[in-house]
């Protein structure tokens, strides 16, 4: 009993008492979620999909606005397409080897690698090999982006709103 005023006492309600006892009882900590090694992989894959979607949307917008008539934006559109392909390839490779774990690589000698893909090895192994050569997609993407920006710089007329040719 807790003294409130002189000569008078009050008792705590049963529900409050029960809550107090629950928090004092021994149980696993629920405040923070645990993260396994797949969390970062899921996040990374999600980022690839987001990047892929963003690039796809950019291609769509450029075409909707008719900007691809300008060589600069046309090359940037190509860059975005290559980034879409690159994201798809990277996503595919991560899916096979890390997320699903159905493809593994083994170094045989300094110059050789064996790709193990289980039952679907004949199809998945060449695809996986090609997907691991993803720089063949992102480097052209960057090259097209550079070429596009250079064209925008050289011919800004009709490339930016308000800079139409007189």
């Amino acid at each position, binding site marked *: 009993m807790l003294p409130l005023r002189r000569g008078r006492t009050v008792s705590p309600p049963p529900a409050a008492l029960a809550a107090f006892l629950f928090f004092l009882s021994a149980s696993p900590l629920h405040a923070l979620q645990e993260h396994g090694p797949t969390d970062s992989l899921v*996040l990374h894959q999600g980022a690839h999909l987001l990047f892929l979607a963003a690039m796809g949307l950019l291609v769509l917008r450029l075409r909707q606005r008719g900007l691809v008539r300008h060589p600069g934006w046309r090359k940037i559109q190509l860059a975005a397409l290559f980034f879409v392909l690159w994201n798809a390839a990277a996503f595919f490779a991560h899916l096979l080897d890390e997320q699903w774990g159905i493809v593994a690589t083994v170094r045989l000698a300094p110059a*050789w690698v064996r790709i193990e893909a289980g039952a679907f090895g004949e199809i998945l192994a060449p695809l996986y090999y090609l997907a691991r050569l993803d720089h063949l997609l992102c*480097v052209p993407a960057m090259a097209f982006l550079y070429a596009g920006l250079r064209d925008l710089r050289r011919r800004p007329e009709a490339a*930016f709103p308000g800079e139409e040719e007189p």
Partner: protein
Amino acid sequence: MTVPFWPLFAVDVGGSLAMIALSFLCLGTATHLRRADPESLLRIYLFWVCVGLAGFSLSRAAGHIARQGLLLAGREDLWAALRPYSSAVNTLLFVALAAVTLFFERVWKATERIARDRLALRRARAELLEVNRELERLAGDRARALAFSERQYRRIFEVARDPILVLDPEGTIREINPAGAKLLGGGEEAADRLRGAPLVRFLARPGAWREIGAAIERRGFVQNVELELRRADGVLLPVLASAVRDRESGGEGAAVHLIARDIEERRRLQEQMAQADRLASIGQLSAGVAHEINNPLGVILGYTQLLLRGEAPGSERHRDLKTIEKHVRHCKAIVEDLLKFARRSEPKQEKVDIHRTIEEVLHFFGQNAAGGRIRLESDFDRRIPEVVVDEKKIKQVLLNLLMNARHAVGGEGTIRVVTRWLEEEGKLAVAVEDDGCGIEDKDLPHIFDPFFTTKPTGEGTGLGLSVSYGIVRRHGGEIRVESRPGKGSVFTVVLPAAGAPPEEET
């Protein structure tokens, strides 16, 4: 499936290096694009996309190169420790890059709107500039027109021959034109001195301004009010004044604009016309009277001469008859003069060298009439051509004027005869000047009246100037008189060189 390792390695490392190089090339180009128009939202956007790409490329390439290096070095454990961080950074940059790219549409729209607004602003500015130019042109035209108008009105004010005054309601002079300054101050330069002076100081009758002020207060204007202004030399000048009230006089409060017109000349002309009318009436009357008297006088003279034949010279009756004859002759001379004054006959038209005529008169006058102490001077304008006049009558006029001059100077003085050629009018002027006693103002209007004389009784008939007036008028000319009592007189005969017009009558 066994595949060669080197293509994977070469593409991974070479591609990573190429990505770094290309991403920084992109960043450089985007930087140039942004610098070309730092206010373009789209260019700023592209710059930040390239920044993200460069960061991503750098992070990813570094990870890939490190992986290949560590795997080749057999340090898979080290790569296993490094890998989560590299992957996390790559993921973050992915997400950021994707998020930024998703904003392309919004950035484009915003850029379009900014461009539209900028274009609208540019057009509005161009229109404003055009409107401003038009306004400036209109203002310039207006200012020039205003300046021209102001200059024009100022010139009217300055060159007006009549005095123009701007007064405040109390009658203080605010502005006065050169003609006014000349009249009231003696010269155009007196304008500054006259500003601030009360007009009443220059009025012969100070109460006149009160009357004008009251009339202006009542009606807003006065018109053709006769005033007498006191000139700088003290002489009173009759003027016809018109004044109007101006309630908004350039911010200086109400003002009165007054224009005064000199009517002295008009008055003189009116007096001359009245005198001419009077003389014409007198002439007609005189002619009638003279004609009626002349016949009886002729009869009296005839019978007197008949009676004289019957009387012995030296007898008392002979002397009485002689006295009668003498007075009758005198009466006849007067009557003849009266007839000369009033006669309507045209003068003879003969070409005369006026200077030779004047010299003959002067010679005769010098020999017979001028005393020894009277100096005779002449000043001839030799440009005067031969003139068409009745020489005898003009000689009579000149002799009359010279005789009057001799009387005016008394025993001693100077008489000058001056000729001038008035080329524009085709007239000549012969002035007889003396420095004698002059003519009283009260006598001036009567000097051409028949029988008006200031000479003692018996010394003159009072017909000399009347006769001269009649002769000159019949020549189509006029006689002008200027006289200042005590200073002398100038009688100027103005004659047309070509003779009297046929229709001219006295």
